C-alpha cells in the first residue's frame, strides 16, 4: 500500500483532496440540514409559480399549504381538492407539513414564499396575521358565500379592520360528555344552571364516582374550563377582550372566574396533571368519571361502537350572564396568502370550500367534525352530530379556544403553567398574569 519516494505527492494530493472534500461535504451537509426546516417551512420555494409570479386572473393552478397531516384530515382535504378539480378544471398542488411544524413555522412560512391557500384557524391567530398584512382579504369571495354562513361564523371570519380573511370549513363544540346508561341507572338529570351542576357533582361524589373527568398533562385542556367559566361569569365580549388583552387580568372579574372554578375544583379528577385527554376519555368510557368537558373529538377515543352509541353531551351550564348563549366551537378553515391576492383559481378554491359541496367532500372522509355551510348535507349525521350542529346553530356567540383567541405566547407560556398551578393549589396570582401579559402583548 505504501508508495515509495515518487508517490507521496500524489498520495498527499489525494489525501488532502479527500479531506478537504470531506470538510466541504460536512459544511454543505450541515448547511443542508440547517436549511431543510426552513425549506420545509417555505414549501413554496421550488414549486412552479402559480399565482404570485403572474398575478393575473388567468392562472389556472393553485397551491395549498396544509397542516392537516394526520391521515384522516389529509385524505379529507384531498377529497375536497379532487372535487374542486373535477368541478373547475384547475389543478391543486398540496404541500402537507406535519401540523406542529406547520403551526410553529407559520411566521417564516407566511413571510417566505408561501402557497396560495393555507389551512388555519379562526380567532386571534387569524386576526393577528391579517393585521400584519401577511394574508389577503377575501371580501369578494364572501360576497358569493356570505349567505351560506351564520352571523357568528361570519364574525369569526372577520379581521380587526372589518374585512373577511377566512373561509370556515368545519367546527366542533366543547361540552360535557357523559354515558347515557350510567346517568339513566343513577337517575341523573342534565343540569341547566351552575347550582344544579354543583348539586349533581355532589351526588356523583356520594355515589363513588369522580364527578368531572379532567386531564391537563398537556396544559391546554384546562383552558376549556377557564373559557367557559369566564364566558358564563363575564360574558362573551369580556372573553374576547381579555384574550386580546384589552382587559386587565388583575381585576375582580378575573378573580371571580377562579373563585367559581374553585367551587367545583374538588369535583375534578385529582390526578389531572399526570393524565392526557385520551386517558380521561377512557375513564369516562369505563364509567369511572361522571362527565368530561372536552371538544367533540373526544368521541374518536371510543372505538367500541356500543360505547359510542351510549355517549351524549350537554352544554356548559348557565352561571351569571348570557345563559348558555356562548359555545366554544373552534373553527378550522382556509385562508389566502398575500402573494395570491390576485390568483383567481385560489379564490375559486376558497369559494368552493365555502359551499356545502366542498365541505361535504371533506366530511365524507372526516366524520368527526361538522360542516359549517348552511347548504351542507347533514343527512349522514349521527345523533351526536345533529345535536352538536343544533347547539352551534343556536349559539349567539362562538368562541374559539383560549389558545386560538389569545396571543399564542400568552396561552402557551403563561396560561399553561398558571392553570396547572391553579389546578394543583387552587390559588392564582392575577397580578403576575397581568404583568406577564403586559410584557408579552407589548412585544408584538
Amino acid at each position, binding site marked *: 500500500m505504501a508508495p515509495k519516494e515518487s508517490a507521496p*505527492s500524489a498520495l498527499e494530493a489525494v489525501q488532502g483532496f479527500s479531506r478537504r472534500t470531506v470538510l466541504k461535504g460536512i459544511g454543505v451537509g450541515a448547511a443542508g440540514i440547517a436549511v431543510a426546516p426552513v425549506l420545509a417551512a417555505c414549501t413554496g420555494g421550488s414549486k412552479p409559480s402559480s399565482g404570485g409570479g403572474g398575478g393575473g386572473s388567468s392562472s389556472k393552478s393553485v397551491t395549498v399549504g396544509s397542516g392537516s397531516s394526520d391521515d384522516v384530515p389529509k385524505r379529507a382535504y384531498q377529497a375536497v381538492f379532487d372535487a374542486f378539480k373535477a368541478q373547475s378544471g384547475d389543478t391543486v398542488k398540496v404541500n402537507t407539513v406535519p401540523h406542529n411544524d406547520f403551526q*410553529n413555522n407559520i411566521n417564516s412560512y407566511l413571510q417566505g414564499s408561501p402557497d396560495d391557500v393555507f389551512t388555519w384557524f379562526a380567532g386571534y391567530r387569524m386576526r393577528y396575521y391579517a393585521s400584519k398584512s401577511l394574508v389577503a382579504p377575501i371580501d369578494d369571495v364572501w360576497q358569493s358565500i356570505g349567505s351560506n354562513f351564520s352571523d357568528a361564523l361570519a364574525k369569526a371570519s372577520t379581521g380587526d379592520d372589518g374585512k373577511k380573511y377566512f373561509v370556515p370549513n368545519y367546527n366542533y363544540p366543547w361540552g360535557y360528555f357523559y354515558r347515557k346508561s350510567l346517568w339513566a341507572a343513577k337517575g341523573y338529570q342534565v343540569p341547566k344552571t351552575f347550582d344544579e351542576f354543583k348539586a349533581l357533582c355532589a351526588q356523583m361524589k356520594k355515589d363513588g364516582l369522580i364527578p368531572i373527568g379532567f386531564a391537563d398533562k398537556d396544559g391546554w385542556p384546562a383552558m376549556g374550563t377557564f373559557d367557559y367559566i369566564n364566558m358564563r361569569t363575564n360574558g362573551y365580549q369580556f372573553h374576547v377582550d381579555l384574550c386580546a388583552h384589552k382587559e386587565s387580568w388583575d381585576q375582580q372579574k378575573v378573580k371571580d372566574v377562579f373563585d367559581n372554578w374553585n367551587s367545583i375544583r374538588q369535583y375534578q379528577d385529582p390526578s389531572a396533571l399526570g393524565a392526557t385527554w385520551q386517558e380521561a376519555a377512557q375513564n369516562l368510557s369505563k364509567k369511572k368519571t361522571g362527565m368530561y368537558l372536552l371538544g367533540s373529538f373526544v368521541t374518536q377515543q371510543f372505538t367500541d361502537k356500543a360505547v359510542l352509541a351510549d355517549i351524549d353531551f350537554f352544554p356548559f351550564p348557565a352561571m351569571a350572564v348570557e345563559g348558555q348563549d356562548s359555545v366554544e366551537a373552534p373553527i378550522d378553515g382556509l385562508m389566502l396568502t398575500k402573494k395570491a391576492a390576485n390568483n383567481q383559481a385560489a379564490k375559486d378554491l376558497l369559494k368552493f370550500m365555502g359551499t356545502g359541496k366542498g365541505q361535504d367532500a371533506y366530511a365524507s372522509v372526516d366524520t368527526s367534525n361538522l360542516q359549517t355551510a348552511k347548504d351542507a348535507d347533514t343527512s349522514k349525521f349521527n345523533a351526536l352530530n345533529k345535536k352538536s350542529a343544533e347547539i352551534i346553530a343556536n349559539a349567539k356567540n362562538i368562541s374559539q379556544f383560549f389558545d386560538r383567541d389569545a396571543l399564542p405566547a400568552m396561552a402557551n407560556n403563561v396560561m399553561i403553567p398558571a392553570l396547572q398551578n391553579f389546578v394543583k393549589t387552587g390559588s392564582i396570582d392575577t397580578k403576575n398574569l397581568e404583568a406577564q401579559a403586559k410584557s408579552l402583548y407589548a412585544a408584538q
Partner: protein
Amino acid sequence: MTDLPLVGVPRDTRSKQAPTPSTGKPQRRRRVRRLNGRDKLVLGVMVGIPTLIQAVFVWIPMVLSIALSFTKWNGLALSDIKANGLQNYKFVTQNYPPFWPAVQHNIIWLAFLALIATPIGLLLAVLLDQKIKGSRIYQSIFFTPVMLSLVLVGIIWQLMYEKDNGLINNLLRTANTSHAVDWYGNSKVNLWAALVAATWRHAGYIMVLYLAGLKGVDPSLKEAAAIDGATAPQTFFRVVFPAMRPINIVVVVITIIEALRAFDIVYIINRGTNGLELISALVIQNLVGEGQVIGVGSALAVMLLVISLVPITFYLARTFKKVD
C-alpha cells in the same frame, strides 16, 4: 510515509528529508515557514472551512442571540425589532414564575448527577474492573441505556412509572387504588422520578469512561501500594483515583454539562411544566413554536450560556495548561 505532516512541509523538501529526519531539524524549522501558494491555499481551506462552519453555526447565532436578548421582536419583519434594554432580563427574573423553579431544578439536577449518578458509575466501573465472570456482559447491559436517546429513556421509564398500568405501582400493589403515586404527574415526586431515569443512563456513561481510566492506570502502582501494606480502599482512594486525574476532570465537566443541557427527558414527560421546569426547556418554549417570544427566549438562552461558560472555561483552561 502517510503519517508525515500534511501541510507546512513543501513536498520537494520532504522526499529528501524523510530518510534522514534526525539531521534535518534546524533546516526543517526554517523551511516550514516557506509556504508556497498551494500550501497557503490548503492551509486556508483547512482553517477557513472549519472557522466558517464554526462562525455560521456557533458564533454568529450566539452574537445574534445576545443582541436579540436586549430587544423585543415579534419574529416578523426585521424592522419590527425594537430595543428593550434589560427589560427581558427583568421579566425573566421578576415576572416569569417558572424561571426560579427552573434554576432550582437545574441545581438539584446537577447535585443529583454529581453526588449520586456519577459515584454509581464509578462504583460500577470499579466492580467490573475486577476480573469477575461475565464482566463484558454486565458492561454491555449497563452501557445500553447510553446508546438510547433520553427521549427513549423517558418513554421506557414511563412504562415503569404509569399510575395504574406501571410496573412500580403494581409491585407496590397500589395500582388502581387511591394510594397510587402518579410518578410523572405529581409535582412533588416527578423531578426525582425523572432524575432516576436520567441516572440510569448517566451512570452507564460514567462507567465506560472510568473503565477506560482504570485500564490506563499502571498496575505497578497498585503493586507498589500493596507491597507498602495499603488496604484495597486505601489503594483505590489514595493511589488509583488520583492517578485517573485526567478522566476525573472529563467526568466532572461531562456531569456539569449533562446537568445544564438536560432537556429531552423532561420535554418528553410533560414539556417541562408542572414541577419539571428546567432552563433549557424554558428556552425552547420561548424560542421555538407558537409561544415564541424571541426577546425573552434569547435572554434565557444567554443566561444558560453564561452559566455553561463557567465549567467550559474551567475545562479549557485545564486542557491548555496541560499542553503547555
